[in-house]
């Protein structure tokens, strides 16, 4: 299991420095106050001792000689739109499993404070995107991922979570998958060795005139057997849900725009 996740104790003599992806967090305990600051950028000139001069400190009163800080992986409150870079074509009645990797968020928790969650930060700045049409839809983050058909571990990508997705085409026509929506609020996050995994998401496409079916499978056999729960789903799925989850070539938002 990665040493980042779990408890970190800081005191007047021991500070905290964490780097994960583009995110760096500095933590100190000074004069009975927990001080935290962070930087999310691809800059290379930084020091573990001293944050950038532009960094803004946040502080919490804590009358204790030591502060316990717990770091846990998390997902944002918004869904993620996965762009598999190359469009996928899935014939009728076929099914496939892909393994997109998505950046994880970091939740900094102090059990000594109330509310306990001090910060929740992305490990990479993602751009906003819209999943839906011009009159309704969801604000999401955009993630570009190769979405391989076999899981591939990269030791440098410690901030990435493997999010397996099974897509079944139960319609009677070819499914052209341009993008799909991953509702990460429904997913648990697991640790397995140095890797992070989520539950398996299962999207069932039943035709362009019908909503897709969305399900979460926690006991999937494609997940590592030695996984341990690091974070539970923010908004666990109580029953199978339906909704738009797959964007095909036809209904790409942006097509059909005219300027008067």
């Amino acid at each position, binding site marked *: 299991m990665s040493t980042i996740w779990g408890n970190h104790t800081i005191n007047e003599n021991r500070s905290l420095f964490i780097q994960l992806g583009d995110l760096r967090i500095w933590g100190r305990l000074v004069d009975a106050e927990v001080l935290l600051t962070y930087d999310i950028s691809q800059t290379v000139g930084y020091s573990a001792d001293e944050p950038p001069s532009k960094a803004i400190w946040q502080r919490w009163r804590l009358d204790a000689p030591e502060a316990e800080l717990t770091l846990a992986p998390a997902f944002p409150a918004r869904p993620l739109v996965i762009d598999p870079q190359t469009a996928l074509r899935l014939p009728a009645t076929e099914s496939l499993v892909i393994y997109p990797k998505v950046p994880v968020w970091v939740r900094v928790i102090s059990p000594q404070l109330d509310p306990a969650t001090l910060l929740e930060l992305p490990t990479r700045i993602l*751009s906003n*995107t*819209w999943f839906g049409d011009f*009159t309704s839809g969801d604000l999401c983050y955009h993630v570009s991922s190769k979405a391989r058909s076999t899981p591939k571990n990269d030791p440098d990508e410690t901030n990435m979570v493997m999010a397996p997705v099974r897509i079944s085409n139960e319609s009677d026509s070819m499914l052209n998958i341009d993008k799909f929506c991953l509702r990460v609020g429904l997913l648990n996050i697991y640790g397995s060795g140095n890797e992070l995994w989520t539950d398996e998401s299962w999207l069932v496409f039943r035709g362009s005139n019908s909503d897709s079916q969305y399900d979460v499978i926690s006991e999937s056999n494609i997940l590592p057997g030695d996984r341990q729960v690091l974070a539970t789903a923010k908004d666990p799925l109580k029953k199978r849900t339906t909704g738009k989850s797959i964007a095909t070539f036809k209904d790409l938002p942006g097509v059909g725009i005219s*300027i008067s």
Partner: protein
Amino acid sequence: MDSTVVSNTVSGFMLSEERIYMITRIALILVIGLPLVFSLVRLTRRVTRNRFTAQQTMLFEKLVRYSGLIILTISVLRELGFHMGSLLGAAGIFGIAIGFASQTSVSNIISGLFLIGEKPFEINDIITVGSTTGVVLSVDLLSVKMRTFDNKYIRIPNETLIKTEVTNITRFPIRRLDMNIGVAYKEDIGRVREVLMDIARQNPYCLNEPEPLIIMAGFGNSSLDMIFGLWVLKSDFLTLKNSIFEEIKARFDAEGIEIPFPHISFYTGSVTEPLPIKMVPPEEGDA
């Protein structure tokens, strides 16, 4: 002193027992009734707030408030000895009389009912009526109240709204910000397009999908004109507008892309160079 008259005096007036009972009953009606009505209004707000829109919540509140106040008024009038039959008869005659004089109000009320039914906008929407843009504060039977962005309170009669074109700016969750951009004729359009798309990608408020649009608008007098359309969440519209212009200017400067100002070139013919201009210092004695 008569035994039926109570010896109490209030401000010098002699009060009969019957009158004291009447005042007590009225006081009880008001003391119990008014807090009850306002409690019911608060309860209605609490119950409807999470289930209905702000507009519908306000309608329910007003319905409860005015119904309660009307019932209280009728109760007090009855205690004072007014007969409701004669009051309503008088009100009918009075109503006919003022009906002729209040056609505008009636028109506003009917327009208000249409507005409430049709729902072209709701409370907290941002609308433009004529030259006025603001946030809708309330949709009432007679008028719509708005707050403009420079914090003016505007009342627009419902009849005006029914007759006028109303633009609801915040009806849909996303909006497009269209910018007119001109670049010098010498610039490579393909490169300008790439730079603009990169600026959009870097801006955190600009939506990745729907994709930004770059449309050539024409050959202007001084520049190649294009429209740069960016999609944004409605709540981020002003933030994007503020940031993107700065980013375009800074990036164009860094990339050496010229944003031309209006200018006129004089030529002596289609194949000649522009007329040379030589600046001559003024001679001595010239004014």
